[in-house]
């Protein structure tokens, strides 16, 4: 008797199919019910200087919601402060980066009141430089508050992402191109020859 026809075989197949078919909509519906708006955090620079004040902007969060901003890394979780979003789910505020925390890689994280992480950015915490460099600020076109030291290049890149490829000067070498062309010709000729030779003669 084939495995499919035996009752354990059938039970297994039908059971797994039912499990798969029902679990997909069930998880989708359950997760949908739990979902809340996720937003975006914005920094002018991903390198933060310990002990400096950094303007942070947020967009597309729940309106009039409370968010906690933290730096999260292997050294621990450091609360920078709380913000309340405006009527369109945005905020723009400055926060002090502690001077005494371990340098290195962190994530800047926004946590909603239910404890869910709703946005994050990878950042790097650098040492205070001897002659403190001013953090480039965030320009707010919509009348929000404006921090000192604008960096318009960084801003326009952050605010207007595009699907246009960067215009880069590609590295080229006659050796690489020539080698590739020769390789292609050899492959074409070799392939053609192998396909032309009567089969079974080798």
């Amino acid at each position, binding site marked *: 008797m*084939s495995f499919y026809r035996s009752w354990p075989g059938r039970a297994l197949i039908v059971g797994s*199919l039912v499990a*798969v*078919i029902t679990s*997909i909509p069930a*998880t*989708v519906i*359950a*997760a*949908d019910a739990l*979902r809340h*708006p*996720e*937003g*975006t*955090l914005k920094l002018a620079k*991903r390198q933060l200087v310990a002990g400096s004040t950094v303007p942070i902007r947020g*967009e*597309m969060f729940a309106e009039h919601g409370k968010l906690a901003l933290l730096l*999260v*890394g292997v050294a621990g979780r450091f609360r920078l402060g709380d913000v309340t979003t405006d009527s369109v789910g945005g905020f723009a505020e400055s926060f002090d980066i502690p001077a005494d925390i371990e340098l290195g*890689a962190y*994530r800047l*994280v926004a946590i909603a009141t239910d404890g869910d*992480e709703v946005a994050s*950015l*990878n*950042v790097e915490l650098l040492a205070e430089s001897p002659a403190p460099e001013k953090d480039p600020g965030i320009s707010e076109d919509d009348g929000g508050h404006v921090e000192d030291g604008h960096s318009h290049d960084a801003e326009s*890149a952050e605010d207007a*992402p*595009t*699907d*246009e*490829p*960067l215009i*880069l*000067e*590609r*590295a*080229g*070498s006659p*050796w*690489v*191109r020539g080698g*590739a062309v020769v*390789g*292609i010709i050899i*492959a*074409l000729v*070799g*392939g*053609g*020859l*192998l*396909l032309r*030779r009567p*089969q*079974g*003669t*080798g």
Partner: protein
Amino acid sequence: MTTPPPTAGPTRHGPVAERLALHGLDYDVPARANRLDFMLGALTLVSLTLLAVTGIVLTQYYNPAPLAAHSSVQYIITNVPLVTFLRDVHVWSASGAMVLVFAHLAAVFWRRGFRNPREGLWWSGVLLLALLFGLSFTGTVLTGDQEAVEALAHATAGADLVGPLGVPLQEAFTPSTPLLTRLYGVHVSVLPLALVLILGLHLWLIRHLGVSAAGTERALFRSHLRPLGGFALLLVAVVGIFAIALPHGLLAPGVGGFEVTKPPWEFLWIYAAENLLGMNGMLIAPAVLFGFLAIVPISDRQPGRGATVTRVLGVTLFVILVVAIVYAALAPGQTHLGM
């Protein structure tokens, strides 16, 4: 009556061939398997080999730290001619592998190569397809450009949808290693390892169950290697031509919270489903495709209604897949996250 395999007298093997036990290639296979539609699987393997070789070179130049990834790719493009070319070969081989694996799947489906005793062979193939999609996705996010950041945002949103199963795909999973770095690990170790294991099973089953070619005429497997080598070289040439003629670009460093790009072509059918169904489309469309592929050997076991329905459904799904890809490529960009 079975035709005996052609023997041109006793086969002579040189000392090297003897030591490599190449006489092991002298087993007989159906003569019909000497056609292109029976070589699509092996040609997929050729693309995978190109991917592995070029990928190893790329690992020497790529930096998987989130703040360094984009600039390392930009460095490759602007400063290292050989590696730029190999990166383009890598990207085009990935597309080639996808086209070939779908052609292979379609050919096997059409000749009902999944029927008894090859169900396991088919299911191992379905797993291979899933792994290829996984490799393609994790490869896309590595560049850290706008397309990559959007792909990653989709993945974390999708991971949210599947609850606890999706936790490893969240940034918060561990504070010590960023998600991008973990996905890099998945791209260069976990998925290739799984691919090699499942591929081993696939090839083992092919060797021992044989392919489902019609006809009784037999030929030596060795004779199969010559045309296969020919097609393989042509494939390498075509990939090389694409790499030179249409080098792969890089977008600006990615900014979260925006959707201005479309995914690579092999994911456009999922993008189309998201256009129609919102974020849930990214789970429903793959579930339909892979769910269908999983039941094929059960629903089409012998001639009859089940077989007809399976074939009609399969062809319909394939047409929908192609139409969805074309539609998504032409449709204006749309926002899905948060829908």
